[in-house]
């Protein structure tokens, strides 16, 4: 607790005035004036009360006792254990600029758009739970100064002789650079993704850290080592320096000089040095709990940028589907009547076509969700798990994207080919007749659907962590039923109608499954997200 010099009351940092204000006599003080007795002696450490949650293991610094009964991270009411700890002093702090009211207003703006999010998130009482937390960040300063010699390359074209080629050069020179304000979060609790989305922070407003800034606020503890992000800091600096160099070299005789340098080479050539400092950055934070899972809502305490992945409320989703169905039934009926075609058969054709679309959407969605599930982009979590620094390979990312893109094109192309092939084989076999035409089309489409389902299954089961197969199995089963009907009795009105209905219901289960998977990723069990418990450490021993 920080004590008022005038009356002995509790003083807290006030966001509006950016000063410490006494709750009793209203005196205000500059943060650097106020120190606890022990703190004045020690430069590197300060005394803090750390509350540890028995449910999720979160460790949070707080000066007030209100932290003792409610865990901010897993949103459970529980008795937190507290201890006094000597914590390493951060170098900088960016004090809160946005008040709770401003934060809630910013958050309301993004909830307005999220029409399928649970309505509790619009409830003023729930929003009152937003807590001001300082998140530990690593603050990097990068310096370069060196004489370098690197490989340059320029393409040349001679239009008259239609010649094209490459000229290689030795490019040497002198580089001097300084980069400031590269920040990466240093807490496992806080995902890189959310951190990046409420970024940037304007580091020009940073202040030297004094423990009194924390009075009235929570602060998370640092647990990711700075080396996890140092290579990223170097990479940012090296990329900028390379761009400057390319610009500088593309002068006079040279039009478009390219310099290819890996991050490690550039670090050597430019003598790139990183120094890391600790900084506390302000975040308005709320964990939204539903049953045993939580979702995190975050607002940047300096700029007010809000970010979260909203869970989709199943009830709202079903109501939306119901409303849209009622709205669409009449226009669809009119369109159906315009065709001089047997309604049941038309129905079967159309559902087969839409189910093909839903398999494609399922494929794309499951791929995206799984990438997120594996945390492949979160360097902090990756380090926590494997104790190896994760290096985002930019080139690999591009290749992966191209691969996915090519895959989807491939898939669609091969599906069409399968249709045509089956169709032609049957035509050549002489079964072709005006009526059989439709049947063959339906059989072909069913097989195409099954093919697509197989590809989805391959994708879905290939990932160990995926538990979502009920939807896919139901969808595939529906296609099998349609195929069976088409083989047994393709002309029956009832059969075609049953097939279409089964198909739509089967695919519906698939989409419900996607919604559940989405929610599983936005809402997690806190113990899984948090620091490793005994079981998890045991699991990782054989890694």
């Amino acid at each position: 607790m920080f004590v008022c010099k005038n009356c002995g009351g509790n003083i807290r940092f006030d966001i509006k005035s950016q000063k410490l204000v006494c709750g009793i006599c209203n005196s205000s003080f500059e943060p650097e004036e106020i120190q606890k007795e022990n703190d004045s002696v020690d430069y590197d450490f300060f005394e803090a009360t750390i509350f540890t949650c028995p449910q999720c293991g979160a460790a949070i610094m707080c000066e007030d006792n209100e932290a003792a009964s409610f865990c901010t991270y897993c949103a459970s009411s529980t008795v937190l254990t507290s201890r006094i700890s000597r914590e390493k002093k951060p170098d900088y702090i960016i004090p809160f600029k946005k008040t709770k009211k401003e934060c809630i207003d910013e958050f309301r703006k993004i909830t307005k758009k999220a029409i399928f999010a649970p309505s509790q998130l619009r409830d003023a009482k729930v929003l009152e739970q937003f807590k001001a937390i300082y998140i530990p960040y690593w603050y990097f300063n990068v310096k370069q100064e060196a004489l370098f010699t690197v490989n340059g390359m320029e393409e040349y074209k001679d239009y008259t002789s239609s010649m094209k080629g490459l000229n290689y050069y030795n490019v040497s020179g002198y580089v001097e650079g300084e980069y400031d304000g590269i920040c990466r979060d240093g807490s496992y609790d806080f995902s890189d993704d959310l951190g990046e989305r409420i970024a940037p922070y304007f580091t020009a407003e940073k202040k030297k850290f004094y423990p009194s800034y924390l009075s009235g606020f929570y602060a998370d503890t640092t647990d990711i080592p700075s080396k996890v992000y140092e290579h990223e800091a170097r990479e940012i600096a090296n990329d900028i320096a390379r761009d400057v160099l390319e610009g500088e070299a593309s002068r006079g005789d040279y039009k478009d000089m390219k310099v290819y340098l890996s991050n490690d080479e550039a670090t050597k050539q430019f003598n790139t040095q990183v120094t890391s400092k600790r900084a506390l950055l302000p975040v308005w934070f709320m964990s939204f709990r539903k049953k045993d899972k939580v979702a995190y809502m975050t607002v940047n305490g300096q700029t007010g940028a809000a970010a979260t992945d909203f869970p989709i409320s199943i009830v709202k989703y079903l109501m939306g589907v119901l409303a849209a169905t009622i709205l669409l039934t009449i226009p669809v009926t009119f369109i159906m009547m315009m065709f001089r075609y047997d309604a049941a058969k038309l129905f079967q054709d159309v559902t087969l076509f839409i189910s093909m679309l839903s398999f494609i959407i399922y494929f794309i969605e499951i791929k995206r969700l799984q990438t997120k599930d594996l945390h492949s982009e979160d360097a902090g979590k990756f380090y926590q798990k494997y104790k190896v620094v994760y290096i985002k390979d930019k080139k690999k990312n591009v290749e992966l994207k191209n691969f996915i893109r090519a895959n989807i094109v491939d898939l669609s192309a091969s599906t069409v080919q399968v249709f045509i092939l089956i169709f032609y084989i049957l035509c050549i076999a002489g079964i072709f007749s005006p009526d059989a035409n439709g049947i063959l089309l339906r059989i072909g489409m069913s097989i195409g659907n099954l093919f697509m389902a197989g590809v989805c299954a391959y994708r879905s089961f290939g990932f160990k962590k995926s538990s979502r197969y009920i939807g896919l199995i139901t969808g595939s089963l529906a296609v099998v039923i349609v195929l069976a009907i088409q083989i047994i009795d393709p002309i029956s009105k009832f059969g075609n109608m049953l097939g279409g209905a089964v198909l739509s219901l089967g695919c519906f289960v698939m989409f419900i499954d996607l919604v559940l998977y989405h929610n599983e990723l936005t809402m997690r069990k806190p113990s899984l997200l948090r620091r490793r418990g005994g079981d998890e450490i045991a699991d990782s021993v054989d890694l």
Partner: protein
Amino acid sequence: MKLPIVLICSFFIAFFISFILIFILAKITSVSAKVKKNSEEHDTAGIKYNCVVKNVDIKNKLSQVVVKTNDKTTI
């Protein structure tokens, strides 16, 4: 064509289209603030830097000539 049959069929088609569309809508609206960051480029927002490259000297090392045949008639 009997109307009840058409109505039932239309209902299922409308249902099919609805749950796909509503899913896409729910997905789009549930992700707040877009990740503006282009993964191929580092976000330099919030970073202050000053980088100077001086005395650039370029020496030719070698040339690799690739003859590009735009002319289809040569084959």
